[in-house]
């Protein structure tokens, strides 16, 4: 008997030792993976800094405000200003079109439509979010740009080009305006699905209170739903903005790709260039180390821009989703 209990104690001690060792190995693995993700963040910061150091030591902070772009040896001049403007303008158009539509879709799916319609609709918008941007680009280049040219730009040109310098150029369909609309199409599914998620957080009691006071559906949305999740909706829009600012290939295909001072847009219908599209266009043809460094520096500016937008956006969205139990109101 005694030997039996001794045995079992021996066995269990073995078992515990082994499980402890297994646990240690496992803990090592998971912490290793976590550190690996942090290492990737470090690598991003390191390589962008390392790559752009040449141009910033050559041009200084002036790089951000200059608008010449010349890669010819001996006459090298690089400035990011026109592309910063191009990026901001195309994203602004995308936001102006995309945000109201996304909000309307979110309202329709979460507040108006019965589930019988809302569920397949939300599935369709998710599907739209899964289409690779290169395919948006292909479609925009060969199909959509002619819609923009023939339905919007041509009529405007015919009506105004004599009087308003704004419409002075013959429309191509390849310009900042087209890029902005296609970006809007691309970010609508993203923004609307986050808006929907945020609006789901609003407790039904809020809506019921509004309805019981005799509010119409729109009034309920406006007075009971919106105030409750305002910052979350702003955050959703900003996440979309982050995507629009950083989108590369789609913009490259439709924005017209001009460089130098000519890339500073004179109207929303002029051809332009964004930070990301210039990097994509010239990266493989970079003629010198300085040219390459200038391109990477454009990436660095883009990095700072999107990081700022995203961090603020995440804070706004997270704050909302955290109070989901709904005891708090504003």
């Amino acid at each position, binding site marked *: 008997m005694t030997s039996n209990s001794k045995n079992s104690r021996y066995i269990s001690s073995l078992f515990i030792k082994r*499980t402890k060792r*297994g646990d240690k*190995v*496992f*803990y090592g*693995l*998971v*912490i*290793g*993976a*976590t550190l*690996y*993700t*942090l290492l*990737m*963040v470090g690598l991003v910061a*390191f*390589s*962008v800094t*390392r790559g752009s150091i040449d141009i910033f030591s050559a041009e200084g902070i002036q790089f951000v405000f200059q608008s010449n772009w010349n890669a010819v040896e001996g006459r090298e001049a690089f400035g990011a200003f026109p592309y910063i403007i191009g990026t901001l303008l195309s994203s602004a158009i995308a936001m102006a079109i995309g945000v109201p539509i996304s909000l*309307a*879709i979110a309202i*329709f799916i979460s507040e*108006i439509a019965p589930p019988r319609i809302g569920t397949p*609709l939300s599935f*369709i*918008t998710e599907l739209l979010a*899964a*289409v*690779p*941007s290169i*395919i948006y*680009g*292909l*479609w925009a*280049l*060969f199909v*959509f740009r002619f819609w923009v040219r023939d339905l919007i730009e041509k009529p405007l040109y015919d009506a105004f080009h004599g009087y308003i310098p704004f419409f002075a150029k013959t429309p191509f369909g390849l310009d900042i305006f087209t890029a902005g609309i296609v970006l809007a199409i691309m970010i609508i599914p993203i923004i*609307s699905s986050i808006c929907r998620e945020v609006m789901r957080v609003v407790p039904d009691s809020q809506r019921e209170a509004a309805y019981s006071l005799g509010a*119409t*559906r*729109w*009034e309920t949305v406006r007075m009971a739903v919106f105030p409750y999740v305002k910052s979350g909706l702003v955050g959703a829009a900003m996440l979309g903005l982050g995507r629009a600012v*950083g*989108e*590369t*290939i789609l913009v490259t*295909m439709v924005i017209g790709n001009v460089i130098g001072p000519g890339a500073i847009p004179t109207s929303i219908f002029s051809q332009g260039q964004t930070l*990301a599209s210039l*990097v*994509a266009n010239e990266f493989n043809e970079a003629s010198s180390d300085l040219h390459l460094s200038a391109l*990477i520096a454009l*990436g660095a500016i883009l*990095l700072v821009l*999107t*990081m700022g937008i*995203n*961090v603020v*956006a*995440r804070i706004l969205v997270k704050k909302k989703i955290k109070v989901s139990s709904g005891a708090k109101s504003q």
Partner: protein
Amino acid sequence: MTSYHSPKKNYSEILHETVNKNYKKRMIVNKLVTVLSIVCVIAAIIPLGSILLEVVKNGASAISLEFLTQPQGSIGSGRGGVGPAIQGTIIVVGLASLIATPVGVLAAIYLSEFAKGGKFADLVRFFNDVLTGLPSIVIGIVGYVIIVLSIGSFSVFAGAISLSIIMIPIVVRVTEETLKIVPYSLREAGHSLGISKAKITLSIVLPSAKHGILTGIVLAISRIAGETAPLIMTILGTSLFFTGITGPVDALPLRIWRLASQPYESAHAFGWGSALVLILMILAMSIGLRLLARRSSFKGAV
């Protein structure tokens, strides 16, 4: 005349009238908003319909056995196919998912099972979010500066690492969210049996969360399969088949981009064909992985 009526009735009449008038206005506004939101929904669906229609219409006629297996013929001839691009996409995306899936899932296990609310975990989550929001072209720079410059050649490896950086944060987030939903009682049952934490996590918690994790992985793979920008800076794109992990390779998104910028009808047709192949590959991958999960022996508890 009205002055002879009692003021009480008068007031209620006025009140009734205003309320009625207001009510009509409010109802009209309400209807207007409803109609407007329906219009917006339709406006968003039109592009999707048009994209799918054009890709299928223009792509289907380009696809043939030659198109799927052969390298591209001479420019503008309309001969050959995108075989190397299909092969390259499978290799680069496959390699990236082999790196990102274990790293992402393990890091998520750390966050949800080990760290929970700690400061370090919050830091990891924050940087994970930062990584998610980075434009893919910036991540291409990493592949270029770290790997291409040190190997001295554009390479499959650089492409796979870059794509894995895009994929990891998606996998981490979705996996962590899913692990959080697994009821705590399952873990307690494991603890009460004296099973080690590693075993509890691997054979109780993970299988229960299998479907959610898989959805995340599928989502992430379909995201990186369509990425173009980082590939420009890492794998370069060639018209040749795979030559080795340190050599350049082609990929479908990259090929579509190059084809679209050529001035030939035949190149554009190839572009549409490649787009259709890309969409079908993503679809097949997501259906295939789901079927695989359904067939595997362990049925999830959640």
